[in-house]
């Protein structure tokens, strides 16, 4: 909404103040744009730069760096691994979370809210570094070390409390009259779930699914600890090894890899945003 300036006699001082204020605002916005854009520049410039280095420069355009990427034996396997881990976790999380969120939303279970809060807090320990050792030891006992399934399970366990929280919030906002109406027409609970509820919560599930996917896509610690075979490592870990190797990092490789590694996430976010919006971010109904 625009504020309309009331036409009135204004003193010169007031006008000056207004102009100064406006200029300050514009300047502030420019500063912000620069602030947020600056680190990102490297990502869009360096992959195409003939002299890739730490500095982001506009020194020409080339696609040669991508040869580096394509010829690296780790590139595609790591992206594939990331895809596998991310989609696997995402699917597992939305399926289990949707069922749980629906039940928790519609049936009053005493202590439900406290349980969810408790689980949320607990999940912050588990994702901390100290818990990595118990997780390692436990998966070792289960024979799931160096198995990607193990990583999926651990990550899903960590993401579920928040996913249930978000989805439950979403389901809460769906009028119960839909389900009641179907029930009076004789639909069984399973029919209600399939015909009515799931189609209606699709936007919520998409949002949570994308959120989970992005979390796993960027997750470094869990696959790093639980997978020993480099061919199973996802892109998050592989990229880190590219630049952690003492000496001079291979800029051509790192920049192109970073770009390729980042694109799916950005595309996915844009897609879901366009389609469904993020209207329920933070529990505020859009």
């Amino acid at each position: 909404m625009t504020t309309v300036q009331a036409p009135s006699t204004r003193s010169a001082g007031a006008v000056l103040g207004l102009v100064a204020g406006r200029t300050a605002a514009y300047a502030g916005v420019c500063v912000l744009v620069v602030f947020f854009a600056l680190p990102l520049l490297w990502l869009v410039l360096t992959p195409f730069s003939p002299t890739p280095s730490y500095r982001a420069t506009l020194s020409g355009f080339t696609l040669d760096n991508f040869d580096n990427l394509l010829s690296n034996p780790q590139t595609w396997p790591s992206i594939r691994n990331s895809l596998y881990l991310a989609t696997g976790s995402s699917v597992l999380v939305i399926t289990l979370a949707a069922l749980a969120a629906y039940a928790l939303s519609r049936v009053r279970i005493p202590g439900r809210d406290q349980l969810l809060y408790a689980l949320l807090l607990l999940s912050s320990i588990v994702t901390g570094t100290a818990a990595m050792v118990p997780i390692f030891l436990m998966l070792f006992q289960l024979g799931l070390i160096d198995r990607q399934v193990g990583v999926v399970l651990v990550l899903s366990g960590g993401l579920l409390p928040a996913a249930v929280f978000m989805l439950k919030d979403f389901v809460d906002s769906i009028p119960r009259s839909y389900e009641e109406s179907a029930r009076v027409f004789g639909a069984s609970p399973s029919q209600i779930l399939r015909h009515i509820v799931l189609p209606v919560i699709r936007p919520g599930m998409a949002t949570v699914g994308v959120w989970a996917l992005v979390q796993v896509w960027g997750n470094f610690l869990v696959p790093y600890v639980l997978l020993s075979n480099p061919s199973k490592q996802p892109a998050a870990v592989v990229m880190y090894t590219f630049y952690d190797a003492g000496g001079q990092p291979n800029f051509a490789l790192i920049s192109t890899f970073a770009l390729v590694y980042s694109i799916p996430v950005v595309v996915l976010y844009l897609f879901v945003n366009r389609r469904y919006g993020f209207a329920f971010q933070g529990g505020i109904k859009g």
Partner: protein
Amino acid sequence: MATTSQAADVRPAPAGTPGPAPSGQRAPTPRHDGDVVGLGRARAVAFVAPAMVLVAVFLVFPAAWTLYLGLLDYSLTGSGAKAPTFVGLGNYTAALSDPAFAKSLYLTLLFVGGSAVLGQNVLGFFLAWYFRTASRVARTTLNVLVLLAWILPGSVVAFLWQALLDRRNGTLNALLGTTDMAWAIDHPMAVIIIFNIWRGTAFSMLLYTAALGTVPRSHLEVARMAGAGSWQQLRDVVLPTVKRHILTNTLLITLWTFNDFSPYLLTGGGPNNESEILPVYIYKEAIIGGHLGYGSAISLLLLIANLVIAVLYIRLLRTRDSEAA
């Protein structure tokens, strides 16, 4: 959406409205039996069970184990490795009297207060406020940039900032004309605070955009007709309406930032432990130093700090609700 890189940080969404608002004008007649769709207790349990099993095995159990470790002197090296003994609260007393822990706690509070409570909150709000009257170009540009900072994977973001801040060849030094300025070494806390603001503002921005959308236009217009200027409208109309969302947002970003490990990638906790916030401190003690028992105990202390904040928030939220009723 990923805020930090390393850990699979969980993004808890804030609680939805706490049940039907009591009207206070007439006796509240509950309209629902607690199960209007006929799900039935048995089926409800069956629906919740798979999620709960997964959570119990892969979250609760390791978490409990970690907490238990805090009571041992379990180590990867030294006497605690072969036969860890039960030391009860020994780890905790050690931690509370350890100056390194106290310093780390202080740094963490500084980090959280500066980058989250102040930085992300204020900037996110400012952006949301600005967007209402901004031109389409400005709004879209800023929106995209701020969001990109948030959703890019942590490994990538860490490297982008390394590239930016590099001493010899970094972009920042090139732009400012300062050569050989080791930002991460000279001003580690400032660097990680600014980094965290950059990284996480998007969430606050999104939340406040939605929150500001709930402010009824009529309220603002009443204020304007009474002669209130922009700042006064903000103070008298907007802030009271969105107070609840401010609390929610502050809680979430506080909790996330408390547990954020990614500053490690920029400063390594140094130099000289000058930017060693608690997550980094735990990492150094537990993984690098091998003192798992001690590290786990500190994890619990960190959790308790989170719990205190969460409880505070719920209290504040309840008073808001009862005020509003």
